[in-house]
């Protein structure tokens, strides 16, 4: 979970990492009148994406008149598609030099890595690509809670060496100590907050000392359960999603508690020449793979007329009601022509899956709601009871379930099931792919 800059700075403040004076966060241009500020003033758009400065989301105002006009502009701005809904007002500090400090986990070794660079204030990924030698890294192999003093000093010293031209050599020792201190604190914040990333960019050298002018912190979602104090301090009551704008379907899935992503834009207009396939796979991995499968089969056998519409993760052991909601969601989605589903019961039960599916279909039939064909297969845990239930229901609700085609067992691989489902649905539409 990403935190907003002002939230990270609150945390930094408790960790005694120096930050510019915070005046407040406003949500409308009018609010500016009620916040006591000094000039020059920094106006920072609060959006959870990088590159705000380049996109014009960060401004400096010298006067109230200028601030007012800038605030209006900012509230009308969209940064990488995200509207600016709030603006942080903070003290503008002088800039005698900028550096970068970051801590994250190396995805290759799974060790913590502390990175510093004297090339601060710019896109650090670009620096990494273009001038990798300007980033100094140290790997912490034992997941220590605090950074060993020696490493902090080494990193600070490396920074000082690179900053040499910009700093007063007489004050070098003092600067190195304060840099080492901040590097240690950034690492400690990362560990203490269960962060995936903790970054200061830029760390500004000012006449009053070093100050973290911008701050980034991504929390580990898996650890939120034990970061209650932190979340409470920040006033965050529920998990925030990193993905910018959620579609209607995504919000509905989120409310029902399962991951779902639309692959088509909201209010998408269907191409009547094409067949749109909704997916209820088992597990996130197959959720991703089944999108590829449908697309590949569409290309290979159906003249590229087949469009997968969603990613879904029915995950380990969904409840029956959640399964029902998965099918309702796709059947309510007017774009979808056909649902492909697969249940490979490992941790999850075929029995719960089929009960959830049938409940959705029977409910819709009774209420006269939109029905679309369902093709799929189920294999694995609890299959015998699932089969018994399916057979019984097919008998009792023959009409409602006439377009539910679930194969029991693995006599056919999923690719064949997908191909057949598409083929049959095309035929029922009178198409000859």
């Amino acid at each position, binding site marked *: 979970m990403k935190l907003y800059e002002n939230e990270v700075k609150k945390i930094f403040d408790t960790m005694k990492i120096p930050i510019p004076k915070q005046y407040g966060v406003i949500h409308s241009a009018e609010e500016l009148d009620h916040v006591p500020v000094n000039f020059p003033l920094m106006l920072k758009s609060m959006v959870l994406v990088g590159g705000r400065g380049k996109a014009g989301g960060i401004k400096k105002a010298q006067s109230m008149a200028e601030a007012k006009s800038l605030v209006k502009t900012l509230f009308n701005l969209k940064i990488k598609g995200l509207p600016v809904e709030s603006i942080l007002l903070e003290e503008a500090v002088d800039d005698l030099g900028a550096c970068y400090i970051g801590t994250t986990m190396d995805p290759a070794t*799974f060790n913590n890595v502390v990175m510093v660079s004297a090339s601060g204030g710019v896109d650090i990924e670009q620096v990494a690509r273009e001038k990798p030698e300007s980033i100094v890294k140290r790997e912490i192999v034992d997941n220590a809670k605090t950074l060993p003093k020696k490493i902090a000093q080494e990193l600070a010293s490396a920074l000082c060496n690179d900053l040499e031209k910009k700093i007063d050599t007489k004050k070098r020792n003092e600067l190195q100590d304060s840099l080492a201190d901040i590097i240690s604190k950034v690492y400690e914040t990362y560990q203490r907050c269960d962060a995936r990333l903790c970054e200061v960019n830029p760390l500004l050298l000012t006449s009053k000392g070093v100050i973290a002018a911008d701050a980034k912190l991504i929390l580990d*979602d898996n650890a939120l359960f034990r970061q209650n104090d932190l979340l409470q301090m920040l006033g965050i009551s529920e998990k925030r999603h990193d993905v910018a704008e959620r579609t209607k379907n995504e919000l509905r899935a989120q409310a029902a508690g399962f991951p779902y992503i639309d692959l088509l834009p909201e209010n998408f207009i269907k191409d009547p020449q094409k067949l749109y396939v909704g997916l209820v796979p088992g597990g996130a*991995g197959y959720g991703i*793979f089944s999108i590829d499968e449908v697309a590949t089969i569409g290309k290979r056998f159906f003249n590229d007329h087949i469009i997968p519409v969603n*990613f879904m993760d029915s995950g380990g052991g969904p409840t029956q009601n959640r399964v029902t909601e998965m099918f309702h969601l796709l059947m309510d989605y007017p774009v979808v022509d056909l649902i492909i589903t697969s249940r490979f019961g490992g941790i999850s039960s075929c029995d719960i899956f089929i009960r959830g599916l049938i409940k959705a279909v029977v409910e819709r039939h009774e209420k006269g709601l939109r029905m679309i064909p369902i093709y799929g297969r189920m294999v694995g845990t609890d299959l015998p009871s699932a089969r018994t239930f399916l057979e019984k229901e097919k008998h009792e609700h023959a009409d409602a379930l006439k377009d539910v085609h679930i194969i029991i067992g693995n006599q056919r691989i999923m*690719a064949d099931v997908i191909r057949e489902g598409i083929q049959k649905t095309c035929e029922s539409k009178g198409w000859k792919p």
Partner: protein
Amino acid sequence: MKLVPPDQGMLYYIIENKRPDLAKKIRDTGIIETAVVGLGGQGTRHAELMQQYGTTITAGIAPGRGGTRLLETIPVYDTIKECLKEHPSIAVASIWRHYSTAKDATIEVIEADIPVVVLISEGIPLKDIRDILVAARKHKTVLIGGNTPGVIFPPEGIKAGMLPDVFYPEEVSPEAFGPKGVTIISRSGAILYHLSDALASVGIAQNAVIGVGGDGAIGSTFRDLVPLAMAYKNTDLVVVAGEIGGCQEELLAEDIKKNPKNYPKPLIALISGAHAPEGKTMGHAGAIVSPGQVYGTFQSKKHALESAGVPVMNSQYDLIAEVQKRLQKKTYFDVENYYKKMKTIWDAPSKKPGWGTLITKVMPNNLLISGYPLQDIVERKGFLETAYLLVKGEFPDKKTVEEMRKIAVEAAKKPVPKVTHLKNEDISKTLVKYFVLDEELAQYPEGGTDGAVKKTIFCLGRTARYLSAILGTEKALGHLHGNEPFSHIIYRAVTGNSTVNEQHSRMIEAMIVACVDHGVTPPSAQATLIAASTRAPYEVAVAQGVGAITDVHGGAGAKAAQLFTECIMKSKKENIDVAQATREIMRKYIEEGKRIEGLGHRLHTKDPRRDVLWNFSSQTGIAGKHVQLSKMVSMIFEQVRGMSLPINVDGVIGAIVADMGLNPAMAKAFFIYGRIAGLSGHYFEEVASQPRMRQINFTEAVYKGKGPRSIV
């Protein structure tokens, strides 16, 4: 179907590399022992599925649950350390703990030097995972996961995890499997199944199927596992299934280029996520594609692997074709046959519900307690030893017998609460009053592994005292000397004699032992089990069972004693032969609509306890007219009623009690007394091996204990 011996499979190969000492044990025993750590819903459920698949689960680990049993038969320990003291050969542990406690549990297992650890738990914080990885590196553990569906070794029939049992080994003959095949290593569980499925559909076997786990940091990555699988001689080809996010695939490609000698066999990759939109999180923590990253995208992975010479697929069809090409169309088994076998698995009827008891196997004319025939126990073992057997499953050694005797004697010495035995009150009801009111019993500790048996023995000592209080014989318990056998105490309590008649004392003990248990179905056992399922205190649950012993259940002995006494008296008084007197009394009973007790049993036509008690009564010189009558009564009944009903144990005990000149009510008292030992066994078994407040279907119980054996 014959499986591949464990010491030829890949799991053994992995263990051998890490712990040659364990490998030797596996070669000696032919078994790879595993432990299940974390016994919540998932752990328990999958323990059963793993066991059904063929995995040997030696122990369960759950803090606070030490001394209980998993799946009714597998011992559970509080910590892995305690477990390894008893079972030092455990080579594999699967961990099912909740994400909030998984770290400590996993590190404990790693530090105990278990060579293969499969971390199933999902949602573990990254910081905790890093601590786990630090420990695993230090101990050179092969750590799979976290957030893994587990590993499965089809040729050996071993699984650690929650993978469904769909993977198919090589078939070397219609009756036997071989160890050869393709190894599949995947980041996603469901993709594993679909790849396995695809390969099996063209007759390609799998010798190991490994889910590495979907988290951002995991124990073993592709780079660790692919060379390991390739070094194992029976692997013909390796398939890795990667997906967008993370950099495992890129690192694998880098390693292939750097160390080509570690990759001597064909390798094929399947990468998912070609059509995934950038910047959206798709389930797995690892599958985040952040724009601008140089790794983690479909293209970066495909490019890296292809440049290392690994063909990259993106569909089931292409994967099948590529694997077939690399294996030159080789097949490992007949596909028709495979589907037929799979179909029998899918079409198998739902498993009959059932639950297990290890205490008594009840068969017609045969009762086995922990495998020992009850009649042999009656003949050769005392009451306390039998009670010990009922609770612990084994007889105590000599030293323990003495320890138990002391506990019982101490218990019998202490005064009991004041309870009135009302006139005509059923003795079972009076005993219930004692159980409920006795604070000595309530406060006697029952914790620890030996606590259950000690509490039972203490209770039996107390019961002797209750009986003496009911019978007004407490004086006879006044001067117990230090070495008093417990059977003497029972004798004193029952008869009120301070001087012990050794023969009578032995006879009484034998009758009590004959009544100790009859499985889980008698109403008294049911009552105790239901109370135990609610975790009622021991003495309350036993009281429930004792309270259920009434005239209808367990009271026949007293009635039989009265009947036999009446018959003998009539024959004396009227000077007619006993058979004649008995016939007349039976006719009278029938006219009055009274039951004739002591005859007939719902299961036994020749009660296994009958002959041993008859013999005992002859050997001790106790057998007299009543016992003699008891041997004829079945025949006499047939003459009166025209149908044959065998004498049951109550009838035999009734006759012996009558011959000993005891109060007929003692026949019932002996039954209750003996049964308290059995009820204790059932109580502690229920508490140790079953979930709380379960619905108990008594007819579904299955004996899962020791097979028949003889007392040595």
